[in-house]
């Protein structure tokens, strides 16, 4: 069977690890700093970092680095800006989530260690327009990134490679005959 290489090729951007090229030393980044996005509708860097954490907790894939969640948040932020949304939806949403996190666990959202506890906080705001916007936006903002395709084993466009006729369309060999 022809298997798919699911490793992301190392480029300057993936090495630097930030959506906007800010230098980050691999291994020393805290959760709050990792891949911080630069946003147009959110002023606070803490909120920006919280949004990346929210993005990951909504659609957690351990093998997808923070960089791609940050990119997804940047895409959603840009959609809001282009739609002329001045309601501060993302900023207010993270503030609300932090309030809930404080109430339930005595901490800011990003400081809650257990994923299950963070998910509980998210569930409490699941009905809000903020959550709906982020979750629905992520469906394309995260899963339409070509690197995410590679990480999850999807090979993308096929015509320019001559299709799969000679690239393993029927090479499955592990079923007993």
């Amino acid at each position, binding site marked *: *069977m022809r*298997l*798919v290489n699911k490793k992301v090729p190392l480029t300057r951007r993936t090495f630097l690890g930030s959506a906007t090229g800010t230098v980050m030393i691999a291994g020393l980044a805290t959760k709050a700093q990792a891949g911080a996005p630069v946003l147009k509708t959110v002023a606070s860097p803490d909120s920006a970092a919280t949004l990346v954490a929210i993005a990951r*907790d*909504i*659609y*957690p*894939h351990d*093998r997808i680095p923070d960089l791609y969640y940050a990119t997804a948040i940047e895409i959603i932020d840009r959609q809001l800006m282009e739609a002329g949304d001045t309601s501060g939806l993302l900023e207010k949403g993270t503030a609300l989530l932090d309030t809930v996190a404080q109430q339930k666990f005595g901490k800011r959202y990003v400081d809650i260690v257990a*994923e299950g506890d963070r*998910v509980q906080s998210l569930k409490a705001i699941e009905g809000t327009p903020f959550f709906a916007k982020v*979750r629905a936006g992520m*469906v*394309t903002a*995260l*899963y*339409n990134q070509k690197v*995410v*395709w590679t990480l*999850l*084993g*999807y*090979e*993308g*466009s*096929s*015509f*320019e490679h*001559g*299709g*799969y*006729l000679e*690239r*393993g*369309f*029927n*090479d*499955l060999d*592990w*079923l*007993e005959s």
Partner: protein
Amino acid sequence: MDNKFALDDESVVVVVGSGAGGGTLSNELAQRGIKVVCLEAGKRNEIPDFVNDEWESFGQLAWTDKRTTSGDWRVARDFPNLPAWIVKSVGGSTTHWAGASLRFQEHEWKALSTYGSVDNADLLDWPIDAAEMAPWYDKAEFRMGTTGTNGIPRLPGNNNYKVFSAGARKLGYKEFHTGNMSINSEPRDERTSCRQLGFCFQGCKMGAKWSTLYTEIPKGEATGNLEVRPQSQVIRIEHDVSGKVAAVIYADKDGVLQRQKSRVVAVAGNSIESPRLLLNSHSNLFPHGLANGAGHVGRYYMRHMTGSVYAVFDKPVHMYRGTTMAGIIKDEARHDPSRGFVAGYEMETLSLGLPFMAAFLNPGGWGREFTSALDTYDHMAGMWLVGEDMPQASNRITLNADVKDRFGMPVAHVNYDDHANDVAMRNHAFRQGSAIYEAVGAKRTILTPPYPSTHNLGSNRMSAKAADGVVNKWGQAHEVPNLFVSDGSQFTTSAAENPTLTIVALALRQADHIAGRMARNEL
């Protein structure tokens, strides 16, 4: 305007829509020397324009004009403005279809007589039957190059099919193969053969899959009798004082309204736009909508019982490699009430790319339960279940007076509730689909609810008696002699099978009928 045929040429047949029904009818009439103006709302995207990218292609080809929805179907909750995934482009939904070309089973033409009366459903026998349709199916299969007919070899099975068929064998199913597909397995009809691109739903970049875009339409145009006008969205149909259709009002590519006179009008805008057009064409003579004296225009909208089963295995499958639909199990399509429901369903392999899987696997779902499934994307196999749903008077297309399109016309509102028979059938199909995959080692099976409907049927149904439907056995409106319906909205009942072959067969037959009537000056 540089139209080929003049707007005031009353001798033309106007066909609304260029898909399986409209494209085929347009060509057939043109071949017989009849002048046809085919008005297509979408652009003319050709093969080089197609893209192997699910969302980019969706933006290019999908009908996204606003619609509203209601009813207990999950589509209304998850995709409230996208009840259907159909095409707005020359070629209609033949651009993005998977190619499955199945004949109705003999009993499915007589659903009421076969199943008996079902509570809360409005079953009706078609005014035609298998014997009448057989020669037209023969012509359609030859025309479309359907594998498994006319000596055309079936396509080879891909990885998704290997898993599916191994499970079918284990469960003791008897009738399964790679399907009757209108996709060239060898070069034929000046089109090349399939290279297993895996992007059938995004327009076939090989031209191997039959689509009116690069078969019927260019052949019709070559006669000199067919003019296709893209970006021409029909707004209303006008009639004369005697109640015969006389002209069609459409918005051209600049949004300017045009009036094209017509001798005959054939409506083939798929099953949401076609009834909407008739309803929006109300007048003093037809206060409830054109051809709607009996009140059935828009009613009995059907979308098939559908659902998907995806299964996760220990080892990679790469189901996305190759044709989107690559095989079928037909055993459950029989009518067998001992299973707890009337009518039957087909089981067909299906693959979605990762972007669409994220959107449709579990709409609204999130968290580890959701992502643990996507983490195994390349270990997934998948199938789509498609079965006969019950016609209900309350499942219908109506006009939404509160929501207007950019031309000021009320948009279509689609109401749909599952019938108990649909639910029982789906539950059975989910169980059987899961069993197939578990028989060959699936670690996890995921049941997926119906997608925005790709099969849209029944909203201008055929009936023997005018009181029971909209059109007669020729697709001719009971009330308006020179108005025809040529798409799936004619369907009296939905049968278990994918509708395209039947739509093409009906169009071939209807063209023969219309041409004969015109030649005898009866139209």
